[in-house]
């Protein structure tokens, strides 16, 4: 059974853009694409720039797969798997996320 952690109100999210949440000491980037009901949580850490900035990247898709592009050096990360499109060996952690009663919740358990 997942342990859901309350993050913020649904209205705090930025449509087609990202915000960053602090969850048990972890920085997690949250992206929201209302048109497809897409809600994604991925590690905010940019493994290339080695700083915590992914939440400030631009979102979109690559061949249908939702992705975020790093604001620093523009590498692309899948929002569903965390896999980096530009480097097979790099993958970010992704997390379960949902909206319950207009509240955004994240679970850190796989």
């Amino acid at each position, binding site marked *: 059974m997942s342990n859901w952690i309350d993050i913020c109100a649904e209205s705090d999210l930025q449509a087609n853009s990202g915000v960053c*949440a602090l969850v048990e000491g972890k920085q997690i980037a949250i992206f929201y694409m209302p048109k497809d009901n897409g809600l994604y949580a991925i590690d905010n850490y940019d493994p290339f720039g080695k700083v915590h900035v992914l939440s400030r990247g631009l*979102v979109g898709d690559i061949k249908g797969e939702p992705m975020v592009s790093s604001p620093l050096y523009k590498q692309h990360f899948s929002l569903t798997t965390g896999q980096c499109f530009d480097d097979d060996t790099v993958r970010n952690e992704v997390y379960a996320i949902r909206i319950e009663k207009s509240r955004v919740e994240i679970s850190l358990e796989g």
Partner: protein
Amino acid sequence: MSTKQTLVVIGNGMVGHNFLENLVASNLKDDYDIVTFCEEERPAYDRVHLTEFFSGKTADDLSMVTEGFFEEHNIKIHLGDKAVSFDKKNKFVTSAKGVAISYDKLVLATGSYAFVPPVTGHDRENCFVYRTIEDLEALTEAAKTSKVGAVVGGGLLGLEAAKALKDLNLKTNVIQFSPRLMSAQLDAGGAQMLANKIEALDISVHASKNTQKIVDGDHCKHKMMFADGTSLETDIILFSAGIRPRDEIARKSGIEVGSRGGIVINNQCKTSDPDIYAIGECAVWNEETFGLVAPGYNMGRVVVADLQDQEASFTGADMSTKLKLNGVDVASIGDAHAKTADSLVYTYQNGADEIYKSLVVSPDKKKLLGAVMVGDASGYGTLSQYYLNGIELPEHPDSLILPARSDESVGLGPDALPESAQICSCFDVTKGQICSAVESGCHTMPALKDATKAATGCGGCTALLKSVLDCELEKSGFEVNTDLCEHFAYTRQDLYNLMMVHEIKTFDDFLEQHGQGRGCEVCRQAVGSILASYWNEYVLADGQMSVQDTNDTFLANMQKDGTYSVVPRMTGGEVTPDGLIAIGQIAKKYKLYTKVTGGQRVDLFGARVDQLPPIWKELIDAGFESGHAYGKSLRTVKSCVGSTWCRFGVDDSVGLAVELENRYKGLRAPHKIKFAVSGCTRECAEAQGKDIGIIATEGGWNLYVCGNGGMKPRHADLFATDLDKETLIKYIDRVLTFYVRTADRLQRTSVWMENMEGGLDYLKSVVINDKLKICADLEAHMQNVVATYQCEWKTTIEDEEKLKRFRHFVNSDKTDENIVFVEERGQIRPADEDERKHFALVEEV
């Protein structure tokens, strides 16, 4: 002991150097030790484009020598040392500095010298020729204290020289002995049209004037006295009355020279001594000399072949030329004067548009023998192909020079050309060679030029080369994909047009109506830029934020550690002491690193995202506004201090810079835009390295466009001269709006113009002559942008909702603990990885 023979080349001009390039590219490089003498202090440079020295090209730009060429190929060059004689019996060359080199083979590439008519006073002060970079430098120096200039000689070079005098702001005169301009290339009708056009450029043409002597003037330095009793006063005299072969070394050493000068050569370019060749303008073949580079290059290739015992002959040259004189297109092909017996002439003369064209055809009307074009040389490529390849003319040859009134095509498509057709005459590149280069993967003009060298000489074949490329690409089914990205099958310009026609205002509408998927960082930013350029609304308005890159989203520039830099606007680089103090106090309070930028303002580094709004609140309270350093938009208008303070200043450069920066601030564009204004020709603001550069002159302002620094610097092109401020601003409005509307994404103005068909001239025709009849629209657009300017930071700090974004965590007021600074030279800098680890340890303890 070397078994190699020695080959000596006398002269490192264009032809001599091209010969060396061909030599080292052949098998001969292993057979010879190569030595060359170069009389000038600098090795080969492009004399054909010498005039561009005045429009800003430097000696380095004109150089034809790739870096390390002589070292790489083990060629010994004696720079600044003139070969003065050779001993053909004992086979050695002696130089002015006393160097003696034994040779096995000798190549003379001594070129030519400018002929100066032996009139009394020809050697007075400020009398020049127009041949070397040193000549140009001396001329420039003299022009500083002169008002009037005269060119003696109305030929091709003379008219080039006249342009140079005009560019030096001299009242310019052209004095010619014969009754018409360019008498070697043009017929009477063409010459008259050219004279009209040259006069319209405020250059006075004095025909049939025989200069008899030059004496002291009454108002100017000199007075030129003509045989018809008239006279002309001038400060500078530039002789451009033709060239003569430099054959003195051959004369002295007992080599046969022609009755009218020039070193006599046979079809293998050999002189009267079988071990000595002569190439280029110093040589005379069949009693003819050739004053163009292409035949000289050709002779060099013949010598390289002959040295390898390959069959090759020089059998004369096509002396057709196409050039632009003071913005006037002029072309001449083959027998322009219809000297061929029974030849027929067609003439088209358009007085309204000042265009003259004539065709000379064979009696059976099947073959083109010659042509003249003035005012419009667009048909040159087609006509020269008819001429060079003997292609049969259409039924009505005059259709080739008459304007196309219907949709019938009279041009000769590249498909109609045989494989052997010579496309580039400078480097002798055939259509076949171009096709195989395209086949092997050269699918762009730069790649093709690089691989074949075509269009890298005089550039006259550029349009033809492009059409061959396009034709080949089309034939091989290769489609050039110009789609923006996988979400939009359109170019940026397509999207711009769609936006205007359908009045689209958001990215989501764009995606829904014309795209697919969810977009990406490429299309979001491109669309964001287009929307901002056209509608000029607040970039963080609802529905627009998702299209902005992080820099635009947070109205600051993200640095490598995830912090931002803040740049308040300082128009024209002007700032009050109180302003400086305020910036200093704010930087101190927020512990920011401060640095003066290249754009003459102060950049504050190390601000966390949550600090941006309070920093900006204080900056705005101190009277500053956004500097748009984060946007693809106008950055700065750099200026020198100008006539207000400077002893040499001609006009108020700071005042103009402030006015321009205030006018164009906030304009969103495909890429950043930089301006500069200099108060005099000393150019302290470096305006010629900017997208828009302005330099004060005695007569107003000179406008330069499409320059940039950065990775691939480009010197800006002179666009218009001596403008009043109103016209200047009008032109800038038009250039910028046209750029914003038609450039590709992330394309600076330089690349935009270089990729534009017709380049600078086309841009001038659109902006100055309103060729497309869109200038009113372009100006209205800019007026709207100017009228709807807002400081984005002011709007942002007044909006509570927008400020919510400026915190690191959506669910906590903490800040990013990974941002760590250390001190260096009394200021902060981001900690490196090791330092950050150390810092984390200290924290834990």
